[in-house]
């Protein structure tokens, strides 16, 4: 849709309202968005598959390899709730960038997302940076459950080198690194109390284990959409039960508070007249 808007020189809001109206009025059955097709189409637009003066030799990549890895990363993002309800293109941009970096990390780790998009002659969508951070956080969680990566203490830069391994074992890693949060949202409030007590007892028992304690993987994180993991922006207290019947008497004093006094009316009229007269007065030099 972004491509259509660009070609038609229209604003996305105007396009979206017209499109949704047409679909509804004509009863059209539009197939739902296919992420795999969008990945292939979008990746084809990247100018990184052939050597050119603007693209260093070390940055050129094989199209099929990059496409395959990008698809796997997008699939991983979809499985870990990073795609649902969001614009798909920023996720695909972040996945493409990570796929490209991971294929030759030694030369490409120093390249930022913005520079990558510029070299590839592709617009950088604004949310792509946050999608990138979210995807890296998921990969780091998975890396904690891969035996030969656990000891390395990876961060968001170094984990890129091991994306190949992580994707190879992604199904089992997602199962071990994350626990299903769908049944646990309601008990989230009770968990801190239970965990606090459990952790206290656990610490007393584990002190004797020593070195092994640091090598154990972290407990599985909740697999939930990011919007459910963040604390709510504002609390919405439930409104008190209303006893209004709709037929109550309305007191005159309550209505009169909404009426201007004669003095206020005169003042308001004077202010309006002054406002209308103001533009006709020439500005002093």
């Amino acid at each position, binding site marked *: *849709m972004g491509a259509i808007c660009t070609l038609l020189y229209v604003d996305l809001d105007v396009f*979206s309202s017209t499109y949704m109206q047409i679909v509804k009025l004509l009863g059209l059955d539009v197939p739902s968005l296919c992420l795999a097709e969008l990945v292939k189409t979008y990746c084809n637009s990247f100018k990184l598959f052939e050597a050119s003066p603007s693209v260093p030799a070390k940055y050129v990549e094989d199209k099929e390899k990059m496409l395959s890895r990008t698809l796997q990363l997008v699939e991983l993002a979809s499985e870990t709730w990073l795609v649902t309800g969001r614009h798909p293109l920023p996720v695909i941009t972040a996945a493409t960038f990570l796929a490209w970096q991971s294929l030759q990390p030694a030369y490409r780790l120093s390249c930022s997302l913005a520079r990558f998009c510029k070299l590839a002659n592709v617009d950088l969508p604004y949310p792509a940076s946050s999608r990138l951070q979210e995807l890296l956080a998921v990969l780091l969680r998975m890396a904690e459950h891969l035996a030969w990566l656990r000891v390395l203490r990876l961060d968001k830069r170094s984990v890129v080198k091991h994306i190949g391994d992580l994707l190879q074992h992604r199904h089992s890693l997602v199962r071990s690194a994350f626990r299903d949060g769908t049944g646990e949202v309601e008990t989230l409030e009770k968990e801190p109390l239970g965990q606090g007590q459990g952790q206290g007892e656990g610490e007393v028992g584990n002190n004797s284990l020593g070195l092994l304690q640091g090598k154990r993987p972290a407990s599985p994180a909740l697999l939930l959409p990011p919007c459910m993991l963040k604390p709510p922006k504002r609390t919405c207290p439930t409104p008190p039960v209303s006893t209004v019947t*709709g037929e109550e008497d309305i007191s005159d004093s309550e209505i009169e508070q909404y009426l201007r006094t004669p003095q206020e009316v005169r003042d*308001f009229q004077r202010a309006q007249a002054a406002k209308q007269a103001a533009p006709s007065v020439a500005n002093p030099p």
Partner: protein
Amino acid sequence: MDQNNSLPPYAQGLASPQGAMTPGIPIFSPMMPYGTGLTPQPIQNTNSLSILEEQQRQQQQQQQQQQQQQQQQQQQQQQQAVAAAAVQQSTSQQATQGTSGQAPQLFHSQTLTTAPLPGTTPLYPSPMTPMTPITPATPASESSGIVPQLQNIVSTVNLGCKLDLKTIALRARNAEYNPKRFAAVIMRIREPRTTALIFSSGKMVCTGAKSEEQSRLAARKYARVVQKLGFPAKFLDFKIQNMVGSCDVKFPIRLEGLVLTHQQFSSYEPELFPGLIYRMIKPRIVLLIFVSGKVVLTGAKVRAEIYEAFENIYPILKGFRKTT
């Protein structure tokens, strides 16, 4: 005036009922021209009936059963009287009368047992959608335990007289009027916290109330303000035009899966709007379903439609609770 600034233009119209005098062009109307009379079907009971209609059918069946039971009791009493009177006569005659008297009862009881059960014999053709039930069947009586909260009521009333909007804007403290921008006075009161659009024809729209009663009280207060300003305002044809409710199912929802299995009712375009738009046919309610599990229901004329729509959608949403 934009009442829902946080929504994109096409979704803003969801809160505006057809025919209501709201600013701007309503992009969407919750009313849709489907005529198949379908409700979403994750549960096997109400294939083509709404819960309200099903309850009415059950009540009618119960009434029929009670009437037939009363008839049976009357017949039994009559037979006992006849048998008592005929005790002195031959016993064979009594037996034949008893048996002949019982045959009609068997016929009546047979009709009772063969009455159609909910969901097994729909009154009109089953829907043509190819969807397969995702969740196991749940009995009709099991409710979600979640009650949608009403967030906004839109109502209209006719004040029954022409109004001079400039006079109202001049003499009322709580009014704003900019004829170049919009041809109505925008008035607000504190209790109930609402906003009204007052037109020169005498028609008024009242928005922002949290219940039907509050909407009516607010509309009456606006009418009283207009009366105090010297106009012979009445209170004619008050009507609730739209009700908006919201609730939280407290689990994430795979919107991509929902749009695949309920394609006929769903519209999910993440490039345009983060929520899935579900157009339920019976009751005719539009639901906005979000990945966080929050659901907005709109397009209702009565509160029961909101509750019924949510009870219909909840089993469907539960089907998408665990997909990993």
